[in-house]
C-alpha cells in the first residue's frame, strides 16, 4: 500500500519532470529566437546609422578641401585711375567725408577689376598657350574682383605695387581638379573649354593651383554669384540666434508652467484638460507651428519676414510642450519623503519647491532642454513657411535681420543647379549640422552625469 503510494508519487513527479523537460527545449528556443531578433534589430538600426554616416562622410569630406589660386597681383595705376582716397581731416563735417568716401568707393566698384585679375593670371599661363580672356576668367571664382577691390579699399597704398594674393578657383575649376565631373567626357559635355582645362592642369602642375582647407565653408555666407565661396556662416549665426531665443523663452516659461501645474494647481477638470492639451501639442506636426507663425507673428503682429526672431518664436512654441512634459515627469519622480521632510521642517510650499525639489530635478530638466533645443535646431519645415528659405548673402547682425538656418541652408544647397559642386557641399553642411547636434547631445550627457553625482 505504502509502496504503491510512493510509486504513484514518483510516477507523478517523473511525469512532471518529463513535461518540464519537454517544454524546456521549446522555452529555450523561444528565448534564443527573441534574443536573436533583438540583436538583429540593433544590428539593423546601427547598420542604417552607419550607412548614413559613411555615405555623408564619403560625399562630404572632399568638400572640406578646395582649390586655391596663388597669384602675383599688380595693382595697375593705368586701370585703377581714380583719385586718392578721401581723408577725414580734409573735410569740414563727417557727413561730407562719408559722402566723398562713398563716391570714391562707388568709382572703384565700377572699375573693371577683372582686367587686373586677367593680367595676373596671364603671367602664370605657360608660354604658347592660346586662351581667350573669357576662358581664362572662368578659372578664378567670380568674386575675385571684389576681393581685389576690397583689398584696395582697405589699403589704397597698394596702387602700383605687386603683392601675392590667394583667390578661390571657380566651382567648375574645382570640379575639374577634383574629378567631380567625369574628366573623360567630350568637350560638349564639359563645363570648361579645352583651353581652360589645359591651363588648369598646367597650373596644378606648377603649383599655382593647390588644394587647401575650405575655410570659405565656415567664414562666408551663402553665395550664388560665386558658388565656390558659398559658406555656412550666415546660416550658423541665424541658427544661433534662434537657439538663444528658444532657450531664453521656452526654458523659463516651460519650467514655470510645469512647476505650477505639478505643485500648485488644484487637481480639477480644468487642469486635466490643460494636461491633455499639452500632451496633444507635443504631437502636433511642426509644419502647423510654421503656419501659425506665419499667420500670427508675420501677418498679425507684423514682425519682419525671414527673421530669426520669428523663427525662434515658432520653435519656442514647438519646444514648450516637450520641456513642460519632461519637467513634470522629473517633478513626479521626486520622492514624497523629500517634500514632507521639507514641509515638516516648516518650509513654505514655494521654499519646498525651489530649495529642495527643483535642485534634484535639475539634471533631467537640463537634459530635456538640450534635447529640445537640439530638436529645434534641426527643424526645417516651419522655417520654410515664415520666409527663412530665402537667399541671404549677409550675416544677420541682429535677430531682426533676414537670415537662414543650418537645415534650411542644406535644403537650399540641395536645390542648387551646379550639382557637381553642391552635392559634396551639401553633404559637408550636413556633417557640420550633425557635428553641432553631437556636441549639444554630448553636453547634455556630460552635464547630467556631473550634476547627478553632485546631488
Amino acid at each position, binding site marked *: 500500500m505504502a509502496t504503491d503510494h510512493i510509486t504513484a508519487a514518483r510516477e507523478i513527479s517523473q511525469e512532471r519532470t518529463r513535461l518540464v523537460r519537454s517544454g524546456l527545449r521549446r522555452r529555450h528556443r523561444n528565448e534564443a529566437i527573441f534574443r536573436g531578433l533583438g540583436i538583429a534589430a540593433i544590428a539593423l538600426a546601427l547598420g542604417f546609422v552607419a550607412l548614413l554616416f559613411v555615405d555623408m562622410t564619403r560625399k562630404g569630406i572632399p568638400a572640406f578641401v578646395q582649390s586655391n589660386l596663388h597669384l602675383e597681383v599688380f595693382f595697375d595705376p593705368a586701370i585703377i585711375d581714380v583719385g586718392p582716397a578721401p581723408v577725414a581731416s580734409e573735410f569740414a563735417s563727417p557727413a561730407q567725408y562719408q559722402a566723398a568716401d562713398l563716391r570714391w568707393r562707388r568709382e572703384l566698384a565700377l572699375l573693371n577689376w577683372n582686367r587686373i585679375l586677367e593680367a595676373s593670371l596671364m603671367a602664370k599661363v605657360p608660354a604658347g598657350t592660346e586662351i581667350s580672356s573669357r576662358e581664362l576668367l572662368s578659372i578664378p571664382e567670380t568674386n575675385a574682383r571684389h576681393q581685389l577691390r576690397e583689398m584696395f579699399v582697405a589699403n589704397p597704398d597698394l596702387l602700383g605695387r605687386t603683392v601675392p594674393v590667394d583667390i578661390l578657383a571657380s566651382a567648375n575649376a574645382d570640379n575639374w581638379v577634383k574629378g567631380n*565631373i567625369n574628366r573623360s567626357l567630350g568637350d560638349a*559635355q564639359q563645363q570648361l573649354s579645352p583651353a581652360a582645362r589645359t591651363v588648369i592642369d598646367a597650373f596644378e602642375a606648377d603649383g599655382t593651383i593647390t588644394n587647401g582647407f575650405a575655410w570659405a565653408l565656415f567664414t562666408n555666407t551663402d553665395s*550664388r554669384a560665386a558658388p565656390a565661396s558659398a559658406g555656412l556662416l550666415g546660416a550658423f549665426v541665424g541658427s544661433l540666434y534662434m537657439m538663444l531665443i528658444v532657450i531664453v523663452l521656452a526654458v*523659463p516659461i516651460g519650467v514655470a508652467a510645469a512647476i505650477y501645474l505639478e505643485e500648485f494647481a488644484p487637481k480639477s477638470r480644468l487642469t486635466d484638460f490643460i494636461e491633455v492639451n499639452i500632451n496633444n501639442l507635443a504631437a502636433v506636426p511642426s509644419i502647423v507651428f510654421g503656419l501659425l507663425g506665419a499667420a500670427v507673428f508675420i*501677418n498679425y503682429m507684423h514682425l519682419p519676414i525671414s527673421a530669426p526672431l520669428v523663427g525662434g518664436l515658432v520653435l519656442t512654441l514647438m519646444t514648450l510642450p516637450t520641456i513642460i512634459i519632461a519637467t513634470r515627469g522629473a517633478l513626479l519622480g521626486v520622492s514624497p519623503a523629500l517634500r514632507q521632510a521639507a514641509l515638516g521642517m516648516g518650509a513654505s510650499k514655494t521654499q519646498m519647491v525651489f530649495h529642495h525639489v527643483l535642485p534634484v530635478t535639475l539634471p533631467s530638466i537640463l537634459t530635456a532642454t538640450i534635447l529640445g533645443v537640439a530638436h529645434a535646431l534641426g527643424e526645417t519645415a516651419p522655417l520654410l513657411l515664415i520666409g527663412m528659405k*530665402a537667399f*541671404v*548673402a549677409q550675416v544677420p547682425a541682429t535677430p531682426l535681420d533676414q537670415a537662414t538656418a543650418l537645415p534650411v541652408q542644406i535644403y537650399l544647397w540641395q536645390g542648387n543647379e551646379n550639382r557637381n559642386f553642391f552635392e559634396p557641399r551639401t553633404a559637408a553642411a550636413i556633417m557640420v549640422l550633425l557635428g553641432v547636434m553631437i556636441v549639444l547631445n554630448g553636453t547634455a550627457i556630460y552635464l547630467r552625469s556631473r550634476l547627478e553625482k553632485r546631488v
Partner: protein
Amino acid sequence: MKTALLASAAAVALVAGSTAAFAQTRDTIQIAGSSTVLPFASIVAEEFGAVFPEFNTPVVGSGGTGGGLSQFCAGVGDNTIDIANASRQIRDGEREACASNGVTDIREIQFGYDGIVFASAASGPDFALTPVQVYKAVAAKVPVDGELVDNPYTSWSEIDPSLPDQPIMLAIPGSNHGTREVFQERVVDAGCEEAGLPEGLSEEEAEAACTTYRQDVVTEISGDYTETLARLNSDPNTVGVFGLSFYEQNTDTLKVATVDGVTPTKATVAAGEYPVSRPLFFYVKGQHIGVIPGLEDYVAFFLSEAISGEGGTLEAAGLIPQPAEKTEEVLAAFEAGPTQ
C-alpha cells in the same frame, strides 16, 4: 531660479513690446518668386550689395511665380515683399487680388529670356521632338481615327517611328511654376491644335482634351529642377522639362532634345528660332519706392549692361539677354510710373 523667472518675464515683455517696436522701416529689399529667376536675382542681389556699400544685400526667396505674386499682392507695408520674380506675365486675376489689398502700383520689368528644354539622361538615346509628339505623350485622351480615345501610347516609338523605343515617362513642372504655363501654351496647346481634335466637340471639351494629362506617366514636380533631375537619375527613361540655364550647368548628366529640329542654345533662343522660350520678369511694388532704400537703384543696376546686357554677368549664368532697345523701353516705363 528667481533670476530665471525675472528673465522670462522680461523676455515675454520684450516680445510683447516688440510688436510696436517693429513699426520701423525695413532697410533690406525683400524679393520672392520664380525659381527660374531666383539664380539670376540672387546674383544681382550679391553684386548689388558689393557695389553699393550703403545698401544691404537684398534677400531673395523662392516659391514659384504664383507663390511669389500671391505674397507680393498680400498688401503694402514692411512685412510684404517689394519685388516678385516671375517667369510669366502677371494674370488679370492676380492684378485684381493685388488691387483689393491696396497694391495698385505694379511696375513690370522684363529683363531677358529663358528657353525651356526637354532633356533626358546623357547615357540614353537622342530625342528629336515636335509639339504634337509631346502632346500625344502627355494627353489623357488623344484623337485616333477621328475619335477621342484613352491615350494608347506606351512607348515613344509608337507615337512616331523616328523616336527611340523607350517607355514614355515625363517629369513636368507643377502648376505653381511659370514654366508650366509656357509648357502648356507653347508645346501642348500647339501640339493639340496640330493633332486635330475631332469635329463637334464643345469649347470646354476641346480645352479639357488639350489640358488634361495622363496621371500614370506624367509626374508633376512642384519643387526645383534638382527634383526633376533626381527623378531622371532614379528612372533613366524619364524625359524632364528644364530651364535652358539649368541644363547648361549639368551637361555632363543631361542630354537635350531638339524641338522642331532646332537645338536649344542661347543663340537659337535669342534669334527666336527655338520655339519654347519665354521672357522673364520681375514686378516692383511702386508704393515701396522711396520707402525701402535702394529699390530704384536695384532696378537700374539689374538692367545695366554689365549685369543683364550682352556679355554681362547674368549671361554667364545662363540668361539670354534681350535687345538693348527693349531694356531702355522697360527702364523708361519703370521710371515713368504705374503701368496700369
